[in-house]
């Protein structure tokens, strides 16, 4: 789901897709997806906590990525979005693989 959403959002931005869809989906993705994918990895038991921790972590990752680009003099919103999509996709892939391989404890937590 996160993987599909990430691909969809990137496609919208790159192809300069319909403006309303893009204006809603991109900020929503940045504010929710990367952190939520990581929060799922940590196995936070209840949905409400997972969601708010996910949102806060998404905002935090967004802040770090965006400010990182400023400090590295590589300002590009598309690059930032791609980085966040990569984090989200990596986290959800790990989760997917972990679920497939069975329930043995995984060492990678991928919060960053």
């Amino acid at each position, binding site marked *: 789901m996160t993987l599909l959403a990430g691909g969809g959002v990137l496609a919208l931005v790159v192809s300069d897709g319909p403006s309303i869809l893009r*204006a809603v989906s991109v900020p929503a993705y940045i*504010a929710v997806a990367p952190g939520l994918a990581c929060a799922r990895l940590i196995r936070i038991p209840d949905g409400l906590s997972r969601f708010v921790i996910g*949102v*806060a972590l998404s905002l935090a990752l967004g*802040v770090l990525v965006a400010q990182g680009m*400023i400090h590295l003099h590589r300002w590009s919103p598309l690059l930032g979005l791609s980085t966040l999509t990569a984090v989200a996709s990596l986290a959800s892939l790990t989760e997917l693989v972990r679920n497939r391989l069975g329930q043995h404890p995984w060492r990678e*937590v991928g919060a960053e």
Partner: protein
Amino acid sequence: MSGDAALLAAPAAARQRVRDGLPAVAQWAAPATALALGVWALRRGDVADIGSLGLVTALRPELYVALTLLTASFLRGVFRTRPAADTLLAAHVVVLVVLLFGAAPIIEPLPRVISGWLHVGFADYIARTGETLPQLDARFSWPGFFALTAMATRAAGIPDAMPLLAWAPVGFNLLYGAVVFRLARLTSADARTAWLALWLFFPANWVGQDYLGPQAMNYLFYLILVMVLLRWFRPIWYGGRHRARPPRSPVGLLLRLLRLPPRPLLLEPVAQRASSASLVGLVAVVLALFAASTVSHQLTPMAIVVCVGALVLVRRCTLRTLPVLLAVMLMAYISYGAVTYWAGHLDDMFGSVGNVGGTINHGAVQRVRGDEGHQMVVLLRLVLTVVVWVLAAVGAWRRMRRGQGDLGLLMLAGAPFLLLAMQSYGGEIFLRVYAFALPFMAILLAALLVPVWPARRHALAALTAGVLSIVLIGAFFVARYGNEAFEQVRPADHRAVEWLYAHAPAGVSFVSVTSNVPWRAQGIERYRYRPIGEDLGPTTVTAIDEEMRRNPKGAYLIMTKGQYVFAESFLGKPQGWGPDLEREVVDSGQFRLVYTNPEARIYVLGNSERGDR
């Protein structure tokens, strides 16, 4: 069962289902009606009715009816012998948030609070250039939030962050609510206290730091960080050695004086168990949140360090070295990332360390000025703050009587007060201390109201909770929106500013008489913004003239109603001060009118060729 019996039973079962369903429909009808009625009432509110007491004079009585209905239905759900479903109670809370924090965006045509507009301008600059301007404004030394906003808006293909501005408080408060509920659930024995704490948190949160900006996002970081620590990093065992106190020990005497049992902290919650991999992940979350907080806000990381330090000090957090690590991260960023700021402002940052008296004087006394309405608003805020703190203290006492003191919770309610000794934060520190302590104060406050279950007198408790809720909600509209006369952005002022941006060449000065102008939401670096400031006396016209001549490229003087109301209501200028000043400006013959609308005018110097249209 025979076929006949089954046939007979089917309609009976259906009737039973309908009978069971009716109360459920009725329960859901209450929040739905309250929302519809409240929004209808708000939409009928008129901006023109906003007076010196703020938005409250523009609110229609139907809104209070809606809020009373909502409160009654919520408290009925909470205090019933079998509490209502969580989703139903949550729906009540969402409606409350919309009606409280959506009141201004529904009534007013433009987003309120010019600081939010300025933040849009900061994000706009970063989006255009990919750089920051720490020399221009201290807030650029902590640009994280603006960078995020710039990245998100550009990637979303929207020109700036203005569409997010109006409803940001509703969004942020819903997120705060989710964390406050979890915090309350972690630190209270039953769900009723948690729901009540959540319900009281919103009307008590009048501070107004939830508009689009770093402080609002950082408050979320702060709450989440504390929640993670309280949930997963408390001790699992508090040590069972209860040494008998000598009969005359000061602690024992104090406990007896307060009529508390010998062990007021007997029943403390313990950490939730999690796998070691999860714990490592949670530590990573804590560090990521703190890193983002450090680079995006000046004050919140200090509050986090103080609160985590307090938790570790009383051994309610097992990550003993965390406060040290956080403090190192904070100092590292300040000495690297915020050099431009502290190079010129060392005194601002540390000048008030230890000067508690000065901070209190500056924060509480000097802010009380302005016209009668404004003074009343400030007084109400002070009273509301003290009432919340006193009731929370009584709630804490009541919890300790039952042995449920929860030292971690008490420390978190008290630790933000240490900030008073560290920073004056331009006299705003009181608001921030109140805000940082509020979730925990609300939890203690709820403990005052919820009876020990099963209770015989829960009707009385519900009634008390109802009265307190209604009083807090009533006070909220005055305390939060009390400055609405000048915190709203007037469309006429906005049109004048838009005219400036459309017509003024880059590099000119924009001069105003007070700082209350909705500008700098774009082009922050292209013009010199020069509010003459608070020192407005009989020499103001000369000061304006001098300021305008200072820039060889030219200058525009903008005079708007928003500035006049600010001067009269907040700075305490006499009634009619603004129009009088403008008459002086016109009579001096040195200025020429280039733009006018019913509430705003723009002038240039008489001999200037600029803006001659």
